[in-house]
């Protein structure tokens, strides 16, 4: 079975995405409090909504990134430009 290695860089990258989503959701909550003139305590009390929105946005971005990744890979594979083709290694030729 192939081992899947998740590098530290990958983890950092994903955490950064998650943090960005959380900041976005948090900002949304702040805007809502200002717009609808609700009590500022909702910054804390509505944290459930903030976390839920974080998760939804993260999953959405993950989906988009996944689609972009596979689209790139598909295009690379079927591209007519030989430069883009992966040449076999000497070891493979042997």
């Amino acid at each position, binding site marked *: 079975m192939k081992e899947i290695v998740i590098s530290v860089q990958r983890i950092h990258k994903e955490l950064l995405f998650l943090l960005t989503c959380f900041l976005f959701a948090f900002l949304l909550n702040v805007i809502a409090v200002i717009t*609808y003139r609700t009590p500022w305590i*909702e910054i804390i009390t509505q944290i459930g*909504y903030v976390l839920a929105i974080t998760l939804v946005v993260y999953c959405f971005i993950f989906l988009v990134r996944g689609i972009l990744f596979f689209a790139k890979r598909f295009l690379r594979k079927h591209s007519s430009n030989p430069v883009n083709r992966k040449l076999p290694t000497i070891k493979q030729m042997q």
Partner: protein
Amino acid sequence: MSKKKVKKVDLGLRQFIKDLGYVTGGAAMLGAMPWLQSFTPEKISEIKGEKARIALIGTGSRGQYHIHNLLPMNHAEVVALCDIYSPNLEEAGKLCPQAKQYNDYRKMLESPDIDGVVISTPLNWHAPMVLDALSAGKHVFCEKSMALTMNQCKAIYDAYRYTDKVLYFCMQRMFDEKYLKGMQMIHSGLIGDLIGARCHWFRNHDWRRPVPSSKLERQINWRLYRDSSGGLMTELATHQLEVCNWAAKHIPQSVVGMGDIVRWKDGREVYDSVSLTYRYNNGVKITYESLIANKFNGMEDQILGHKGTMNLATGIYFLEEDDNVGNSGIEQLLNQIGSKVFASVPAAGSSWRPETKKEYKPHYVIEGDYNINDGLSMIGAVKDGSDEILSAFCQACITGEKGKDIVEEAYCATMLCLLGNQAMDEKRVVDFPEEYKIPYMKF
């Protein structure tokens, strides 16, 4: 004249006026509710130690309800009782053993030892008894509605104009704290311009009382027959129409409606289901409905303004700007985004979204505990203004001061009830007749 005794002054009404904010908002409050002018703390102190001698004509359930309210009053004593139905008279006699008993009210009115009479009889007796009592020089407190016919109402009003005696009709909402405070708020613009009123009174009861003999059917179940009752309109609607006029400061010009006997087909003559619309000249309408075979919606007096709704019966008001009660800012934002995204219904063609009833944050007219009349009792509710208005009458019997606008309010409300009955019977729009208009009315 009543005997002078050194007794504590009844503080109930004084405190009631104070609680309404007389001390802080005096002139404005009295201007809007002139019938309270006689009951300022200064005037109440004038009757210190005196007692009004009260006689009751009609000692059935409502009469006995009044007796229960009279007994604790320091400024009143029950001196006489009158009823043609002996079981009622006996029951009332147990409550007031010292009161003299009569079967003929005319004989009772001859007694010089009576200052005021409280009339709680079938509606067809109101006019003759009120007029006889005023002629006999007695102050009169009569149950609502004013009378059975428009001519009788006019006769009472005309007699009242020329008598120096006190005349009250039991329009108890005029003395109910919730209504008084609610009206202050309405007239101060809290709910904005008046754009409508919705009143209803639903019960689930056949209105019948047990009858020991078939000969007594029309006497005991007088509410069910047209020669003694105006039905749901005069028994129930009169209070609510009075409240609407009080809020609007005008009288409706026309009425249309439908009445039927839907459930209680037991030989009664009055409708058990009524639905009417009263229209003011500015287009504002009162929607009135009453039926006595379903109590789900209870009793409500809703005054609708462009900024909010006041339900006077419950003492709760709602503001239009609060239409997202319980929703946090983020919930409201998500709802708004959601409505924009899902607003159109392709299958329906054009954009359409049902405006289902929203939840509003309730605001209370009075802080703390207070009584709400659920409208189910056939006798009377607790603390609905009945004891206050009776107390006010007893005070007026001592001072001789006529209550301002009480008769006029009762006249207007009763006339509207009778017109409503006419509209339902004749199945047409009925305008307020010119010959029954009085100077007090504003159309």
